[in-house]
């Protein structure tokens, strides 16, 4: 099966489950990634609803504190590694070969391997919920010594992280090789769509930092089982060292979660403003600057851990610098819309929602960057509000915008526009209802990762819990809409959107199984 000589049986595939298990096609693998992310989105979402149910009122009502902490830990791991990263990798698989005019991904077999690791790694991770000692409950950041007290789940957790890291690194290598080696003649680097650019830089970040995480969790493993002293002061090590290693990975990781969003928004805004993107090259340079800065800001996650003053000041200033390239991007998107002939279809609504609400998250990030102020905010709900603003109406909204934008291309059918708009407005209303009050309880001192709270936080927490359930149910519309569009609907044209530019719109909707067997001509 695997040694078929080329040029024979071009469109014959194994059927049934074997087609999906053995596929090397970038569109098949892209779809698998996207479905996986959608399923994990609901698993991680259910965990969030357990958290919000418990926090609906002060006092302990539904779950015991250990399980509550498992839920916060697992919710984070699932949403970061199981939803946002695979969703963006799925989009990359589907779109990058088409956008650059290539035949497929550069390393198709490895592409299959990268995907199929994910369901296995997450089965390992989720199985820890049923083990002695429960699922990991020390927070997704895995700080020792707390994380070393995990029960039987511990080695499964570590190996699951190794496994997803392997998947991410191979996926990223594939994307870099595809972008650098598979472009059609004439597709110079500075002609590439920004989604391709942002993914190239994201892939570089992934290759650079996932091995560092692997090294860090390996040290946790040997500290627990093989008597090493990396994070044990009695042996000359230092628990704070883990935080440095973790955040050297963790900070670039948050840009891994957001940079492809920038690419998606940079594709959608010009389409619906019917104007070319303002400041293309400055967008590329801004993305590269953000990536560079992401390597020298990690300790802003640990301002209260006890660092020398010079470290506190350096990491504060370096962090604030990131606002400059990010500001360039927001400026460019807004300027692209300036005097454009705008229409507000669902992808555009999600993209504009992204710009507004991601910027709110960006500003609260700037507040957190101020070291002395962070001493007050650290480990409060203000931090929770901040990163949920950049991740939910940030990354998740960008992923949804991308799905609405490209779904007609993928399926050949238009999605029901009114229902899409309803989905957007419900999501936007409820996401703000959930996360905006967290700013207030955070500034008032409510700590994160605690199942109970003081009475004065009750009102805002109740509002946030209402919002979370509303947001959760609103996502059922999304699933219904995707399934409905796949099964039929108004036929989409090849161009789909009036103002759309780029190679993907020159192909039929849906595109042929093999996109560009002969390279397209690039103007």
């Amino acid at each position: 099966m695997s040694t078929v000589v080329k040029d024979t049986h071009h469109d014959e595939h194994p059927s049934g489950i074997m087609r999906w298990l053995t596929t090397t096609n970038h569109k098949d693998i892209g779809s698998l990634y996207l479905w996986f992310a959608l399923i994990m989105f609901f698993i991680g979402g259910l965990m969030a609803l357990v958290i919000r149910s418990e926090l609906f009122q002060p006092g302990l009502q539904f779950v015991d504190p250990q399980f509550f902490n498992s839920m916060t830990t697992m919710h984070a791991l699932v949403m970061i590694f199981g939803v946002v990263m695979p969703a963006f990798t799925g989009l990359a698989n589907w779109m990058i070969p088409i956008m650059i005019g290539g035949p497929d991904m550069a390393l198709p077999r490895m592409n299959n391997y990268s995907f199929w690791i994910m369901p296995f790694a997450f089965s390992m991770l989720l199985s820890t919920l049923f083990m002695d000692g429960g699922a990991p409950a020390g927070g997704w950041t895995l700080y020792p010594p707390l994380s070393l007290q995990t029960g039987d789940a511990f080695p499964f957790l570590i190996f699951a992280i190794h496994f997803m890291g392997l998947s991410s690194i191979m996926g990223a290598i594939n994307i870099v090789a595809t972008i650098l080696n598979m472009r059609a003649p004439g597709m110079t680097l500075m002609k590439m769509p920004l989604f391709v650019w942002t993914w190239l830089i994201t892939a570089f970040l992934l290759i650079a930092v996932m091995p560092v995480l692997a090294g860090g969790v390996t040290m946790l493993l040997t500290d627990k089982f093989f008597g090493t002293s990396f994070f044990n002061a009695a042996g000359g090590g230092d628990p704070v060292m883990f935080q440095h290693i973790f955040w050297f990975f963790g900070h670039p990781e948050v840009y891994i979660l957001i940079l492809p969003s920038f690419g998606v928004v940079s594709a959608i805004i010009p389409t619906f403003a019917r104007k070319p993107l303002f400041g293309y090259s400055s967008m590329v340079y801004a993305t590269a600057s953000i990536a560079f800065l992401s390597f020298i800001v990690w300790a802003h996650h640990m301002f209260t851990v006890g660092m020398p003053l010079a470290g506190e000041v350096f990491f504060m200033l370096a962090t604030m610098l990131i606002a400059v390239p990010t500001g360039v991007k927001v400026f460019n998107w807004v300027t692209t819309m300036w005097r454009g002939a705008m229409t507000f279809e669902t992808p555009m609504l999600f993209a504009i929602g992204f710009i507004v609400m991601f910027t709110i998250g960006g500003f609260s990030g700037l507040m957190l960057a101020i070291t002395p102020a962070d001493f007050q905010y650290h480990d409060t709900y203000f931090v929770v509000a901040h990163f949920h603003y950049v991740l939910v109406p940030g990354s998740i909204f960008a992923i949804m915008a991308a799905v609405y934008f490209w779904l007609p291309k993928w399926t050949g059918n238009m999605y029901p526009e009114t229902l899409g708009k309803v989905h957007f407005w419900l999501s936007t209303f409820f996401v703000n209802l959930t996360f905006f009050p967290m700013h207030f309880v955070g500034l008032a001192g409510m700590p994160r990762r605690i199942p109970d709270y003081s009475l004065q936080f009750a009102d805002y927490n109740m509002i946030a819990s209402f919002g979370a359930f509303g947001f959760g149910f609103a996502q059922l519309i999304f699933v219904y809409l995707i399934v409905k569009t796949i099964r039929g609907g108004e036929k989409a044209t090849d161009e789909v959107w009036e103002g759309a530019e780029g190679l993907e719109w020159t192909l039929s909707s849906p595109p042929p199984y093999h996109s560009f067997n002969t390279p397209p001509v690039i103007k």
Partner: protein
Amino acid sequence: MSDSGSYYVPHSSKWPIIATIAVCTAMVGGSSLLNGNSSGKYVLFVGLALIVYMMVGWFSTVIAESEEGLYDAQVDTSFRMGMIWFIFSEVMFFAAFFGALFYVRTYSLPWLGGEGSGLATNTFLWPNYEAVWPLDANGPGRIGGEFKVMGAWGLPALNTAILLTSGVTLTWAHHALKDMKRYQLIIGLGLTVALGVIFMYFQALEYGHAFNDLNLNLGSGIYGSTFFMLTGFHGFHVTIGTIMLMVILARCIYGHFNPKNHFAFEAVAWYWHFVDVVWLGLFVFVYWI
């Protein structure tokens, strides 16, 4: 970017899913074993056997495709990029452990010894602890008991010479391949493999010396931790590199490769040089200074 349209895309492959199942089986077995479930070792063994089966199968497929001439220059470039970025990821993996070594030596040990803001830590938690690297560095808790450190100028210096020489023999073999001197190629590669094996043998002797004579092991405080994790992961990489060299040697004996088309040889050579450079870092920062 020429020859587009002939880019080889395999239709479907069973190897990736076998690889996933194999690695997952090994991980589940390893985890159970670590949790004290002794039957985990059988699962681990099955997983490792599957990994070996998968690697033989997957690489045989690729080698067969290569020999059939299915790979054009563009595919070759994809493979090169894949290998380069894989080696970069390996560099970052070692960077985590070197980073830990530097952090410990520069910050945490001096702080435990009372330097800077660590005065109270030293006075109240670890009185009389003096931060000295490496002699007293099993930490203020004297974890793992007294031990002696590994010297630099015995076996480790010899191993440095061996690895550096193996880099030379490998380059000689590469030149022979490019000049179509197959006899020299096989001798050069064979010497490289032999030097790799000798390196590993000396490394084993060194570990035996550490365990038996120096009382130095993974539990010997942060010195033992960094020493064995760094040299251990390096030794593991030398082992993999040697196996890769053996495969390339076998392929050379079968008459594979020609002066223009020998990516696999070069990939393994890059990997070997990478392992070599890591060793130099180890020799300087772990053994010497």
